[in-house]
């Protein structure tokens, strides 16, 4: 299990990569993808929509389940990773490369953990 130190993590298992003070990329953690199993589809959010920290932004599908992706930040969707439309498996093979959406004009954050705390948190969860 991989927990890159340069990222922040939410307790809902999303990672956040700050690009500047008010812009960030969001994806799901290695732990999340391994718990969810083979992902087959990502219902991407729509660029321009507002997201709220701690609320559902979009969802990912495995063969037998759907799981909500909670936004770790409040702001506006600037961009979505359309490559996931054709290759949802990237979430499994490269969870930290496969960002799902980019948020801009960030106004608020959910409680975010650093890599070490998050790793400890996943061990409790398991």
């Amino acid at each position, binding site marked *: 299990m991989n927990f890159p130190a340069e990222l922040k993590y939410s307790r809902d298992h999303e990672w956040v990569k700050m690009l500047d003070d008010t812009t960030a990329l969001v994806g799901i953690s290695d732990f999340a993808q391994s718990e969810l199993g083979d992902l*087959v*589809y990502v219902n991407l959010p729509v660029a321009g929509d507002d997201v709220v920290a701690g609320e559902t932004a979009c969802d990912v*599908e495995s*063969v037998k389940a759907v799981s909500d992706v909670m936004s770790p930040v409040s702001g506006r969707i600037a961009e979505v990773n359309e490559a996931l439309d054709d290759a*949802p498996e990237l979430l499994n093979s490269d969870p930290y490369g496969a960002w799902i959406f980019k948020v801009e004009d960030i106004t608020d954050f959910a409680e975010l953990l650093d890599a070490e705390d998050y790793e400890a948190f996943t061990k409790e969860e398991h």
Partner: protein
Amino acid sequence: MKLIFEQGAEGHCLHLLPACDVPEYQLSAERTAPLHLPHVSENELTRHYTALCRQIHGVNDGFYPLGSCTMKYNPKIDEEMASLPGFTKLHPLQPEETAQGALEALHILGTELGEVFGMDAVTFQPAAGAHGEFTGVLLIKAYHTDRGDTARTKIIVPDSAHGTNPATAAMCGYQVVNIASNDKGGVDLDALRAAVGPDTAGLMLTNPNTVGLFDPNILEITKIVHNAGGLCYYDGANLNAVMGVVRPGDMGFDCIHSNLHKTFATPHGGGGPGAGAVGCKAFLRKYMPGPLVVEQSGKFGFEYPEKSIGRVKLFYGNFTVCVKALTYVCTLGKEGISEAAKNAVLNANYMMACLKEKFDMAYDGPCMHEFVMSLTRLHHETGVSALDIAKGMLDFDLHPPTMYFPLIVHEALMVEPCETESKQLMDEVCGIYCRLYDMAYTDPGALHTAPHTTPVRRLDEVGAARNPVLRYRFEA
């Protein structure tokens, strides 16, 4: 197996239609897109479908204990009666006076099922169980709307419910309130009391519930909802356990759907056509979908209820499915209906008794018409999952039980043997289940790779969903 498009050859065909005996009419604009359909002779066609049918496991092929699906024997007389030309050749819009037998059939079935349900009116328009749920919840919506009670925006659903329940409530514009089950799999009364309020439109409940238990608090449950001003919807998926023994109407429910393709022995056809008869108490009748069949001095006709929610389907529902159900109800009659229910319960309890020596039961017995085993311990100890055991059954020509449902039980296998199976067969099946259980310890590898003897083995569902191939592509 080759697809029908890969059989035969250009020029092979059946000779079905005569030449045109009137002047041929050409449209001003006709289709230019190619129309690829099979090119087969009659012999090639029937062989193809016969081969397909050989790769299907039906109730006639063996034991089919699919929990919550009630795969009982489908009597042949029901099929024969439903294929009488006096039923099959009727046009739905022919004058009522020329379809009196069809209307009478619906009327008798409505009256008799009303008695089984403990309800005052029945419609056969819904085509399936979920469609019946939709109709029933709309009756609830129409009732509140008609009273100007627009604050009721929520439907309560237990977490053990079939997925159709919350999906139906959402389709009807309601917010779904999921409530937790108690440790016996029933409704947690405190959770229910906390959930109801002036925003409660109603409750959707299956009883016996989806873990196969009759909720002993049922009267209290329906009372709590009624006291809050909500109505109670009965999901009849498990009616086979109690028909003729106790009636949903007497449990305090206001409306109900029943899957005629479960409880009333009409066949499933690979996933339909079913029929989702909906019954309701007298005070909801005026909201029923139109038209309803009524009798007036020996003549049968249609009536549109005064404040009908409107049609939910073309015409009057899956009519010939109703003819099959009527044939069944007439055959069983007063005594046979409760005898079927009691024996369904007897069979389930018998299998549970035979299996509990090895398998863990999710809930202590006695059960109703089905029971749920949890293979969590087995999975933990051997790595063999409920899926592996189910796939192992395929090598014994057995249809597995329902897997991974209800969601509140981990590694669930849900067994519903039905009343039409014999003790001898159940003994044999329990023997095989126990053998598979032992195999999990002695040869888990063989179960991880099962099945081995079926026409195809485990299929790549991930690949199917990631790169969907949903049709055959013809060469340009």
